[in-house]
């Protein structure tokens, strides 16, 4: 039960608090946002605390973000054991780095009278939570090795399930206590960000990289406009380029991140060698089919008669498919009198191909169940509005002369040809 609270309820409360609280604070309580630097009051310990702490925590957080947003990418990387070892070692080093820095900062805050003067209760809460969190992290790293690998198919899907609003805690319900605690404290810290000094993380002034060195603010709009025009011309082109470069590279990174998720989604899972061969085969077949179709087309454009079949091969109960002059499928049967019956196989309803089996004297269109009389082509039932059109044809004898008078005894020698023109 409390799993549901800690890993579904708490995360959503935390995310809501993070977003709403940060937006509120950045809009209505701007003055309260600051790094709240205490360097002015005490330098030395801050240097040995703040620098390792920030280097450590920013790297570690970066690693977490990569693991949660691009698990497949990370998994691919750490499938190489050397890379896995490197990640594991680096992670632990930076975590220890951060931990040492944090302890120095914490002790400084508790011991130095000047720093005490600028310490709020929330500062102490945050420092305690961070200490616990880092300790838990280090414990996990040492007790349950290879987190860079196992997290990609446990924690990452959990985090993603939270963010895709389909929370699924089955990934983590069976995790050891330390891991669960680490997750829960993380949500707690996220919840507190807008109400603590941690808000400074969102104040990171990246726009500094792209702005002009001087900033001028005008009270009078009119004056501003006339001056700005002059300024833009002289100075900003260079900076525009820089900014464009920055934004582009940012975008590229962003898109690579997204693409890492989207491309596999559309492409489906990575193929094995056998599957790849299969795919190639299919492609080849498709190309062959295209060639075939083109051949048929040219044949129909250049010839007045096209051979379909020997009459003796036609059957009464099962038609032979062929392609008519409209490049559409058609069917050839033998009638009860031994003469051929040729229908367009294109259903007159919505154009499906009619089946070639004759059942109870009727042909079936499988799409919306229209039945056509095999003898006349008329609609027996179903939505089809018109009978199947007949395909014009002729018979040729063994010497390739058009048969004018049918000789019943020579039926087996005759060949069926279709004739250029519309079906009727």
């Amino acid at each position: 039960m409390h799993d549901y609270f800690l890993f579904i309820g708490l995360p959503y409360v935390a995310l809501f608090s993070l977003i709403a609280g940060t937006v509120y604070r950045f809009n209505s309580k701007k003055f309260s946002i600051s790094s709240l630097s205490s360097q002015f009051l005490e330098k030395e310990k801050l240097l040995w605390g703040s620098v390792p702490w920030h280097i450590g925590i920013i790297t570690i957080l970066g690693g977490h973000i990569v693991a949660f947003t691009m698990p497949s990418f990370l998994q691919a990387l750490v499938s190489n054991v050397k890379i896995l070892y490197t990640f594991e070692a680096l992670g632990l080093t930076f975590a220890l780095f951060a931990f040492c820095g944090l302890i120095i900062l914490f002790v400084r805050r508790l011991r130095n009278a000047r720093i005490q003067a600028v310490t709020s209760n929330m500062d102490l809460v945050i420092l305690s939570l961070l200490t616990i969190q880092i300790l838990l992290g280090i414990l996990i790293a040492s007790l349950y090795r290879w987190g860079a690998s196992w997290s990609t198919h446990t924690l990452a899907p959990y985090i993603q399930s939270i963010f895709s609003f389909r929370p699924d805690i089955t990934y983590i319900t069976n995790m050891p206590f330390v891991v669960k605690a680490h997750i829960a404290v993380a949500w707690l810290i996220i919840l507190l960000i807008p109400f603590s000094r941690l808000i400074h993380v969102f104040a990171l002034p990246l726009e500094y990289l792209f702005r002009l060195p001087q900033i001028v603010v005008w009270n009078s709009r009119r004056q501003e406009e006339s001056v700005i025009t002059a300024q833009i011309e002289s100075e900003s082109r260079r900076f525009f380029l820089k900014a464009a470069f920055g934004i582009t590279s940012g975008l590229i990174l962003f898109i690579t991140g997204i693409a890492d998720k989207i491309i596999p989604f559309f492409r489906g899972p990575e193929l094995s060698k056998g599957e790849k061969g299969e795919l190639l085969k299919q492609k080849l077949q498709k190309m062959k089919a295209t060639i075939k179709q083109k051949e048929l087309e040219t044949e129909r454009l250049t010839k007045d008669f096209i051979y379909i079949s020997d009459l003796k091969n036609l059957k009464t109960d099962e038609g032979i498919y062929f392609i008519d002059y409209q490049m559409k499928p058609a069917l050839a049967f033998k009638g009860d009198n031994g003469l051929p019956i040729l229908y367009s196989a294109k259903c007159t309803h919505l154009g499906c191909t009619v089946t070639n089996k004759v059942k109870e004297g009727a042909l079936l269109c499988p799409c919306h169940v229209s039945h056509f009389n095999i003898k006349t082509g008329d609609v027996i039932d179903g939505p089809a509005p018109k009978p199947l059109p007949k395909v014009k044809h002729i018979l040729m004898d063994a010497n390739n002369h058009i048969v004018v008078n049918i000789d019943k005894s020579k039926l087996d020698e005759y060949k069926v040809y279709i004739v250029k023109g519309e079906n009727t």
Partner: protein
Amino acid sequence: MNIRAHVSVVFHLDKCIGCHTCSVACKNIWTDREGSEYMWWNNVETKPGTGFPTQWEDQENYKGGWVLENDELKLKCQKSKLQGLLNLFYNPNMPGLEDYYEPWTYKYEDLFNAGPSDDQPTAVPISKITGEQINIESGPNWDDDLGGSNLYAKNDPNLENLSQEEKDLMLEIENIAMMYLPRICNHCANPSCVAACPSGAIYKRGEDGIVLINQDKCKGWRACISACPYKKIYYNWKTGKSEKCILCYPRLETGQPPACFHACVGRIRYLGVLLYDADRMPEAMKVADHSLVESQRSIFLDPHDPKIIEAAKANGISDEFIDAAQNSPVYKYVVEWKLALPLHIEYRTSPMLFYVPPLLPVMGKMDNGIYEHAKEAFFTSIEKARFSTKYLAGLLSAGNEEIITSVLKKLLAVRYFKRSEQLHDIDKGAVEAIMREANLTEKEAEEIYQMTSMPTVYERFVLPPLQREEAIETKLDPEVCKGCTGCGELNTPKRGL
């Protein structure tokens, strides 16, 4: 040409008596809040001396201002913007509390609550930060009037360029001389604080050039503290925001001079408008040290020139502003008379506060143990002035002694001229020779005398009309912009959690 108006300032150092009235006026208005007790937006230093914060001129330590590298101006504290971001976590060039002083008060209630005893009750000093008793080891103006000069004055960074002999001469007890250097923010035309602020919270006002910090935008990254070579941005340890001199813009906008100007007992302060060509900034700061003063002067434009007036109007500068520029005492001191010089222009921020250097004449000297009026000349010759021109040049002309000499010659010539005019005890011919050498006409000498000794308050402060409310509000739709002008939304400036 992109003409802008700049409210700028002249301090006449010969007139400063070092009374600190200006500092106190400022403190009472602006910096008596928690976290700002140690700030002195206006302070008065004794030179030679280490200043406030101590040795602020030592840019090898604090890395303020700009440096010229391959014809590019680079911030000395951040060679690249990336370095600026890396310095967020720890600023290696920032002065700490110990470089200023720990603000304190006294435990006055001890005086009232003390029981009967044989000794006088005392009020012990307590820190205004921790509330604990402290030993006062430094304070504002700790080396005021050369107090403890052996310890402090000899650490003056400006003495570095002087030979040992010259140094000894300046610090020798009989020869010892001093001057006062009142300092506020220079509201530079090429401010390094603005360029260094990662949040983009510091800006120059377009209409008057005042440099301000947007307290809502400031995130306490502290880059400006080291970037300002004059150390005129202070970090409020309580609110976690930087603060600085605002040239009392709320007073200016209601037609009053800034508080320190108004309070100044020596009447050393002048305020007026300069017109300058914003397109030539920062290029004008990219010349060799010894040409910097001239280069800066060359961007100031003659407000009487009809062409300039036309261009100024095209840029939206109002008639009243142009009027103020024409009557500006600053224009006279800086451009017409070339008497006022920028402080440490080698930092290349193009400060818009100019100082008339002190003449410090030797009025007498020791002879056989008896102090006598100097006989050979009424006023000392410049060579014998108590402050070597080299020292003054280090302060006010980026080491260019010629500039200092010509200024001092002019100041001296004015004195000869007035003395001979009023008391007739100096030979006319000698005065004329001196005037010729100083390149000074009688008319100019009279004007300089009037502006230096006899100016009315309206001659010292020629305020342009800065009706901010009018400028903003007439152009905004009141429906769209509720509460976004004037004072804006009132939020108590409380430290964040």
